[in-house]
């Protein structure tokens, strides 16, 4: 009898453990979200966490297609500068407040404020107005056929809650600002924030009143998100079963994970390009050893550096073939991409060295490279490899690598001479790249352009894209801009990343090209 009782107890325990396992998703990646304020950072991992709790008018699904979210449908009105969005009825925020057009107007205005990191995406928006409680209209400065693509990461906050908690202004991250919304959330999304310790653990619970019941699988009832910076610890956590899903499997461990029983790898090319930027606009650099002039200001130096980087070697050794070398700072997903732009410059350190000598630096020069160490796949190893390659071309590079939370402000405050950056293109259009990375740095555009590159004529071309309705003309302008970017070697492109997600067998979760896992789409196959 004793034995029967024991067997029954074990069976019950197993059953309980089984169901609990099936519902809790333990998820790890290298770095944490930088803030919970949905408009304070335009950065992948920050948006990824926000997407579980907040929603925009529309979103991209797991294959990258735009689908309705808080708006049920949208269309351009008879006036080509006005878009009309019909909002979903009966949606409420986690705090119980009803979702209305006022919240949409409020959130868009908030995202256009000076401290917002999302304002480039709304640069063409002149006005947003409420028509009735469930209809809003967005007025653009000229006709903007691509507006919806700019709104996929634009989250809607509750007006009353945000005002009550003095968070009307987005958190000013670049200047060390803080606010209530950076530590608390009140969205309409499928998951509700339960607890969060920055850089350690964030727990989310399923939203019992979610509007999308029946529309999405919603099989996960609890998300435990743990950033694990060390590649070895992260992979050990997956192998030992401590986590169920990791977003960035170290490239050296792909084979091992794929061969492990009960684990699988899902991969796909990512919509993200990795490159280096150089401060070419300054009169003198902070960290170089050349007084009174800026070696990066000379296009010959930049061409030589572009030539010094052996992208094939980085792909073979550092990335273990998990990258696509490129010569342009946009992934092939993006409108405006073509093979000519993408062509990889021939790597030749000897020629590069001669070019740098001919540009006036026969003894080379010294400069500091700022590199993140928890953001992109093997970011620090790529930087180290580039330090060696530039060293062979005569440039002595001092490497300073640090976590992204300290690295990104250097770029946003333009206090770096030479830096690594990766860029995903959520709109799948070149204009997004130009607005953030090519347009001269200003309050509205060029916020991630730390190169100091300015060209008024080019800026005008970039601005004209937003309201150009003739696709052929627009594409021609896009190509002209790219040709100038390439000719002036504004950036040193390295490669497009290939995404590898590692997960337990039994989890059905296709790799999203923007590296944005939306957990509400996750389902279990057994």
């Amino acid at each position, binding site marked *: 009898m004793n034995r029967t009782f024991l067997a029954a107890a074990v069976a019950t325990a197993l059953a309980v453990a089984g169901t609990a396992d099936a519902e809790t998703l333990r998820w790890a990646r290298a770095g944490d979200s930088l803030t919970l304020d949905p408009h304070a950072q335009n950065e992948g991992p920050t948006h990824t966490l926000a997407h579980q709790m907040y929603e925009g008018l529309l979103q991209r699904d797991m294959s990258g297609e735009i689908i309705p979210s808080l708006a049920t449908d949208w269309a351009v009105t008879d006036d080509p500068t006005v878009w009309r969005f019909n909002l979903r009825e009966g949606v409420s925020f986690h705090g119980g407040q009803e979702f209305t057009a006022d919240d949409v107007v409020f959130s868009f205005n908030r995202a256009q404020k000076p401290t917002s990191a999302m304002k480039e995406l709304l640069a063409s928006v002149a006005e947003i107005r409420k028509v009735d409680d469930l209809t809003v209209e967005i007025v653009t400065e000229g006709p903007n056929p691509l507006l919806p693509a700019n709104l996929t990461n634009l989250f809607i906050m509750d007006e009353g809650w945000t005002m009550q908690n003095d968070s009307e202004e987005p958190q000013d991250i670049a200047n060390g600002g803080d606010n209530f919304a950076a530590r608390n959330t009140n969205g309409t999304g499928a998951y509700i924030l339960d607890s969060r310790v920055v850089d350690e653990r964030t727990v989310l619970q399923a939203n019992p009143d979610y509007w999308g019941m029946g529309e999405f699988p919603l099989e996960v009832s609890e998300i435990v998100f743990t950033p694990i910076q060390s590649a*070895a610890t992260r992979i050990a956590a997956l192998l030992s079963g401590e986590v169920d899903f990791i977003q960035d499997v170290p490239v050296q461990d792909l084979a*091992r994970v794929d061969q492990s029983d009960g684990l699988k790898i899902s991969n796909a090319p990512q919509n993200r390009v990795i490159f280096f930027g150089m401060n070419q606009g300054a009169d003198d650099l902070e960290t170089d050893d050349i007084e009174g002039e800026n070696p990066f200001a000379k296009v010959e130096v930049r061409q030589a550096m572009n030539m010094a980087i052996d992208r094939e070697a980085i792909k073979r050794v550092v990335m273990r073939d998990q990258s696509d070398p490129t010569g342009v700072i946009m992934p092939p997903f993006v409108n405006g991409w073509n093979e000519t732009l993408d062509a990889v410059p021939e790597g030749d350190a000897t020629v590069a060295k001669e070019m740098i000598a001919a540009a006036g630096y026969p003894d080379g020069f010294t400069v500091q490279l700022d590199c993140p160490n928890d953001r992109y796949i093997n970011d620090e*190893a790529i930087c180290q490899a580039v330090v*060696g390659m530039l060293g062979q071309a005569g440039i002595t590079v001092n490497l300073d690598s640090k976590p992204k939370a300290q690295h990104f402000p250097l770029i946003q405050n333009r206090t770096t001479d030479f830096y690594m950056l990766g860029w995903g293109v959520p709109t799948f259009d070149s204009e997004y790249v130009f607005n953030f990375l090519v347009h001269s740095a200003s309050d509205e555009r060029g916020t991630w352009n730390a190169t100091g590159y300015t060209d008024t004529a080019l800026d005008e071309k970039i601005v004209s894209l937003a309201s150009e309705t003739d696709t052929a003309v627009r594409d021609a302008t896009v190509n002209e801009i790219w040709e100038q970017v390439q000719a002036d070697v504004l950036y040193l492109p390295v490669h497009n990343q290939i995404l590898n997600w590692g997960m337990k067998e039994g989890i059905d979760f296709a790799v999203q090209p923007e590296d944005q896992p939306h957990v509400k789409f996750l389902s279990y196959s057994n």
Partner: protein
Amino acid sequence: MSKIATKATDVADGVAGTSMDTVELTPGIAARLGSIWSSDIVWSFRHSPVTIVAALVFTSLLLAAVFAPWISPYTPFDPASLNLMDGFTPPMSTGMGSGAMYWLGTDDQGRDVFSTILYGMRLSLFIGIAAVAFAAVVGVTLGLIAGYTGGWVDALIMRIADIQLTFPSIMVALLIFGIARGLTPPELRDQMAIWVLILSIGLSEWVQFARTVRGSAMVEVKKDYVQAARLLGRKPHHILRKHILPNVLGPVSVIATIYLALAIITEATLSFLGVGAPPTSPSLGTLISIGQDYLFSGEWWILLFPSLTLLALALSVNLLGDWLRDALNPKLQ
């Protein structure tokens, strides 16, 4: 670490006893004191095989580190000399890019592991020795001042020491490292990283020196020969330097040896955490940190060889420290 610290205190007490007794028997004759000590040491050294092995290991590692530029086949700290295509070459194989031979293989950047260990050990030893020397100078000076002056100066110094002891020394080192790094101009950070490490490890370890020296100094101050020197009108700094300092050096040398092992490990820990030596000139800790990423993917040599070297280095220094403590402890003779 706390175990080592306790040992250091034991040693300090034991040795303070020795010097006190000896001094009472033969006051002021430092030379004879020295000869007695060294003969004891030689005797106990000859009768401890473990110590002989430890000394041999330490000496050979030290020589290898000192002569690294002549011994090592490559110059791993010069990024321009690396061939990325040689990355991940297994031990006793030739690189794919250059066709060069690597005895212990290469790491992820194509650096020769053997050469990198030699240079890394050189860095680790230099930082360790310099940090302990710095800690000893700060600790002994403050300890002498506290023990000799007494009163509020003593109270102030020792309270600071007590407060610092309540924090783990690795945390103190991290804190000082962060502040010092913030104050360094960015273009000098790489060059300054090593000096900042020495400063932070040194400042995190001065307390034990200060406490020991203060104790011994307080005992010495009350002795007749110090009183006599005072009556003769000697200046305090002269008395401290000429009379008290030689009598407290015994315990200091034991603590210094044990703390050398500790400093090497602290440096390795800091570098392992990514805040120590710059990635382009790796110390042993940096190498282990790099190797750890390849623990599961089969490139075992990147982790194994630096780890073994660090183990041998720290263990041999620690064994030498243990032996020195026992050799100087009259209760164990």
